[in-house]
């Protein structure tokens, strides 16, 4: 089972929240999954190079030449927050100054 400190630290990395009523259930499910994957500890891998036998041995890289890319009008269609070449987001600098 994950302790509260670790749980909250990892949740912070996830950039989402779990509501108070759901948190215990979520934590139990995560605990079940982690307990299950811990069965890998049964295997001795001390002699294994993790890079051995990777499925990709060679990447096929394309020529370093300009190609088609998304044009600005398409970005505008994708987002109502795209204005004059920028994505509008909530204010950042002012928030930080207020906090000072």
């Amino acid at each position, binding site marked *: 089972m*994950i302790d509260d400190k*670790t749980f909250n*630290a*990892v*949740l912070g*990395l*996830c*950039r*989402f*929240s*779990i509501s108070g009523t759901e948190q215990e259930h*979520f934590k139990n*499910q*995560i605990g*079940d*999954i*982690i307990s*299950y*994957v*811990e*069965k*890998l*500890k*049964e*295997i001795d*891998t001390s002699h*294994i*190079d*993790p*890079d*051995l*036998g*990777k*499925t*990709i041995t060679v*990447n*096929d*890289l*394309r*020529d370093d030449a300009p190609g088609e890319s*998304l044009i600005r009008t*398409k*970005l505008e*269609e*994708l*987002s109502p*927050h*795209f204005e004059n070449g920028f*994505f509008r*987001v*909530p*204010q*950042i600098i002012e*928030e930080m100054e207020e906090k000072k």
Partner: protein
Amino acid sequence: MSEITRYSLTEIKTLLEKKSLTSEEIVSAYQTAYENDNNADIPLNGYIEFFKDARTRASAEDIKRKNNTHGRLSGLPIAVKDNILITGKKATCGSKILEGFSAPYTATVIRRLEKEGAVFLGRTNMDEFAMGSSCEYSQYGPTRNPVNREYVPGGSSGGSAAVVGAFQAPAALGSDTGGSVRLPASFCGLYGLKPGYGTLSRYGLVAYGSSLDQIGIVAHNPADIALLLSVCAGIDSKDSTSRDFSYSDMFPLTPGNLKGLKVALPVQLNGEGNSDSVRKTAAGFIDWLKQQGADVSEISIPNLSYTVAIYYIIAPAEASSNLARYDGIEYGLRNDNGNLLDMYINTRSEGFGSEVKRRIFIGNYVLSSGYYDAYYKKAQAVRSLLTHEFDNIFTDYDIVLSPTSPTPPFKLGEKLDDPVTMYLQDICTIYANLVGIPAISIPAGMSNDNLPIGMQLAGRQGNENLLLSIAQSWKNRGGAA
């Protein structure tokens, strides 16, 4: 139900070539089948959207055929999983976070099909971001099994398999990260191929687990899969992991000669863990292989018992990185109540469903400082071991055989709240993704409750042709299909 919708993709191709039918008539028949079903008491819910322009596109292909300017797939209808991009069409991955998102570019696989004249029928339902084995984790509600609607169709490409099984499409594209094409194919009584890693370009497939993801194909017939693969496969400069396998001569598909075929039967996937009906079906399939002259041997691959554990470290780790892009800034859902950090958290809390949140959490956990070596590095090491073991197996054997699933389809809601039990549903399929090899699910029998059971064949990298030709031999002998 219209007789037209009963034809396989290759039969439709022949009928169009003979001018016995038009593509518009065929697409109309599928649209009617979909609309009638959607008004039924318990709809299938296989499509998230049936494209309004499908008939117009079919009619344009009819004109091309008249003018003799058509491609190899002219007028052939195909359904597409909701995580494969088509310019101008919505693509949501079954998630609220991509609600309203329209694709600004087209996947390579779609572009190749389109160039040859294929007509896309619609977007099919899926477990959110392809994370699930039952097609119940979708923002658009669960898809039901076309054979018995109390049961799940399998996931995550449940919508793709269900619409083919319910004769609302002759074939469909799905994606397979741990069994997501093969399991639904098995549960819906269809053929489902996960090509080897790199056989099909993933450009335009929304990423989940990048070292595991592959686009796959579901159909009533192995020849239908061969036809689509022959058009879609091949290297793509937009996917650096794509491989230079050419399958242009794969269609028409020749049934395989099984005499002398060396078949490995791993005891870890063919034992007591499987239900009685699955074991009975497997025994029947093995008998058939032997009658055809195949040499079937039991082998032991101890690390096969660990594939689910490896997968549920590596796939969530990759998912936690791939899904970091859904932050509310550039596209999709945005909840900007508060400052920038609040926006990220509110958007992702509201936009992601429970299973996606579980996997992102696990991914961040196994990659975080202090846990990386114990989980992620360990899983990669065991994966390497497994890959090496399969390299050795394929020096002695041509294919590896097991059931596709340890059980027949289960009822809706049965495993929804128990993630580990749901994950174990993929115990037979995951290894092919970890190792990167092609695998096919073949409809091989029915359970006592009259539910489909599939058998899975896996082969060497680049051996899709062998798998399909064996499947065609099975189909020709009148196997359950």
